[in-house]
């Protein structure tokens, strides 16, 4: 080999080693839903662009939450990117467990992220997790049943209208129930719905001094209204119904209305699975005229645990997965109706998307009408629309959810459930040192 040849060979070797060194293998923990699975299928595009490879760990939502919490609190380092929600992000960021995402590239256009999403995923004004997709809640209703009952759904109905319509539509002999709402106990199940509903009735979890408020008139009005409505116009066994159970009922044509996550809109309008796909209308979640609607706000977002050895590669992945280019990639491969919704403003300025997703406009309006920093009529010391972003919340809210679910099952009255809820939360907050 000549000297020149040897020089070129050595250079080539150095360059190959350098690129091999910079290429990382990222381990990403995520949830099992349509948008995330689509992202996994498209990972080759990321690998082709950056050289980094990705190992996916897909888990059921509650299992994932426990798994990533264990890892981040012990600094286990099992994951380089975690899929987390709006509940975890501000708590983890305050504890210094997440890498701030304040140095994303100019091409990424972080200002394009919907303001409500940005607010819910930030701590002290700094973004700590990038939204992959976002959702609120809204009313999905059967246009044919409304027409037959001579009703017209306004774009922004009140709870009184919804309750009245639900009772008129109910036809128990034919297994048609006016309204299907969550009843299954859990902080992310019935308490997500009831907390958001309580906001619209002027209720709140805590006052400004962190005193629990279940002994307030507003909470009694909320719970009594919910129980009466479900008893009159809800499906049987509603105390065990969560998202999936109500989705199943709605798809089989058994619900006149369903108030739940905006992401459900794509399911109920899919003719492959839904028997009522062409008879579904959308409206904003109801209010009582007090200035807050009963809709929630949630995002599945990608965050980087502090202490990861692969921070740069992890940021590259987050920029790829939550970028405008990714949305276009999904549109090219799976169609515009399947792009991850609720994260970027520009998506809702895209005419093609607006025409292909009939629920797009209502989703945006619902997201924009939720404010995680000012969720209630009266001021509160916490962040979060359908949750309170403190570590103790998941525990005591699930206990409260069990009391409310028991009330729906007829095992106790609204007053008894509220008294127990108040005692439970007072104890939990005292134990937590508030």
């Amino acid at each position, binding site marked *: 080999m000549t000297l020149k040849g040897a020089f070129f060979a050595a250079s080539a070797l150095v360059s190959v080693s350098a690129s091999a060194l910079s290429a990382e293998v990222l381990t990403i*923990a995520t949830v099992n839903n349509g948008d995330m699975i689509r992202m996994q299928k498209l990972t080759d595009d990321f690998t082709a662009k950056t050289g980094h490879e990705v190992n996916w*760990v897909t888990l059921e939502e509650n299992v994932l939450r426990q798994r990533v919490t264990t890892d981040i609190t012990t600094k286990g380092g099992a994951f380089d990117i975690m899929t987390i929600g709006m509940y975890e992000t501000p708590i983890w960021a305050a504890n210094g467990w997440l890498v701030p995402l304040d140095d994303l590239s100019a091409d990424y256009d972080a200002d394009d992220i919907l303001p409500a999403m940005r607010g819910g995923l930030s701590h002290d004004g700094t973004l700590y997790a990038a939204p992959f997709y976002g959702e609120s809640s809204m009313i999905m209703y059967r246009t044919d049943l409304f027409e037959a009952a001579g009703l017209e759904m306004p774009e922004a109905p009140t709870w009184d209208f919804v309750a009245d319509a639900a009772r008129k539509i109910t036809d128990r002999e034919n297994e048609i129930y006016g309204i299907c709402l969550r009843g299954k106990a859990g902080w992310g199940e019935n308490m997500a719905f009831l907390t958001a509903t309580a906001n619209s009735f002027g209720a709140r979890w805590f006052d400004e001094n962190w005193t629990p408020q279940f002994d307030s008139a507003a909470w009694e009005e909320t719970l009594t209204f919910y129980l009466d409505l479900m008893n009159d116009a809800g499906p049987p066994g509603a105390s065990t119904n969560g998202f999936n159970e109500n989705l199943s009922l709605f798809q089989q044509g058994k619900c006149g209305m369903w108030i739940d996550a905006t992401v459900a809109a794509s399911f109920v309008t899919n003719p492959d*699975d839904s028997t009522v796909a062409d008879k579904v209308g959308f409206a904003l979640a109801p209010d009582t005229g007090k200035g807050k609607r009963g809709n929630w706000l949630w995002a599945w977002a990608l965050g980087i645990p502090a202490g990861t050895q692969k921070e740069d590669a992890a940021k590259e992945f987050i920029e790829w997965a939550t970028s405008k280019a990714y949305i276009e990639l999904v549109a090219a491969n799976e169609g515009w109706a399947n792009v991850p919704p609720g994260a970027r403003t520009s998506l809702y300025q895209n005419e093609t998307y607006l025409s292909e997703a009939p629920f797009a406009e209502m989703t945006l309006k619902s997201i924009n009408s939720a404010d995680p920093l000012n969720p209630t009529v009266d001021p509160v010391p916490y962040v979060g629309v359908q949750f309170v972003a403190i570590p103790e919340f998941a525990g005591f809210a699930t206990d409260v959810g069990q009391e409310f679910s028991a009330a729906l099952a007829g095992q106790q009255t609204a007053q008894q459930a509220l008294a127990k809820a108040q005692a439970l939360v007072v104890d939990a907050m005292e134990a937590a040192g508030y």
Partner: protein
Amino acid sequence: MARAVTTQRKAINTTLAWAVGLLIFFPILWTILTSFKTEAQAISDPPVFLFFDWTLENYAVVQERSDYMRFLWNSVIIAGGSTILGTIIAIPAAWSMAFVPSRRTKDILLWMLSTKMLPAVGVLYPIYLLFIKLGWLDSRIGLVIVLMLINLPIIVWMLYTYFREIPGEILEAARMDGASLREEILYVLTPMAVPGIASTILLNIILAWNEAFWTLNLTAAKAAPLTAFIASYSSPEGLFYAKLSAASVMAIAPILIMGWFSQKQLVRGLTFGAVK
């Protein structure tokens, strides 16, 4: 006349046994049937039992999305490894307790079992921190050891029960013939207790195969077994019951087949003593 009554009784007993068997097997049967339905059929009300358009689509989707063989291989190593390791440790332990008991043997047995009374989540953080220190997170060796430790009390208890039924005189005779302790355990005790040991091993493989708490919490991408494979198809926001059922069938199929072929051994070991 008496014979007629016996036949009638037999018929009732058989029917009852079949009914109970079917009741217990029904959830598995329903999972298998659901795995061949479309997602719409899986949630249809009234439910469809046999007369639907059978489809293999769910299996195709699961196969395309997940590396099933990797999960399966991890399950085989973790369940097999922990059982073998546990049995190697438990045989001498059970021997000493059965044939040379001390005043404290009963207390030790009870203490061993008491470790099973602690909810697993109570020791999650200590174990997790230990795993980080040892570099065992997401490793098969770590899981083999944890599952071995979890199942060890059961293995020792089961073997102890079988060994107790072997007459000590037989071992004494072997000793008088000049057998060493190792030879006594290996060539005299073990062959006599084969049905008991076999059923203990089978039961522990099943327990380790189905263990979902530690296998989910201590793994990520590399060492995840079939329990993680199933968990990846469960979703509280979206109806994917048919795909979840297909994943479940794929996860339980190997252990179901193993159980089917070894059921005689399993039943004999569980219902009879070691030398009966």
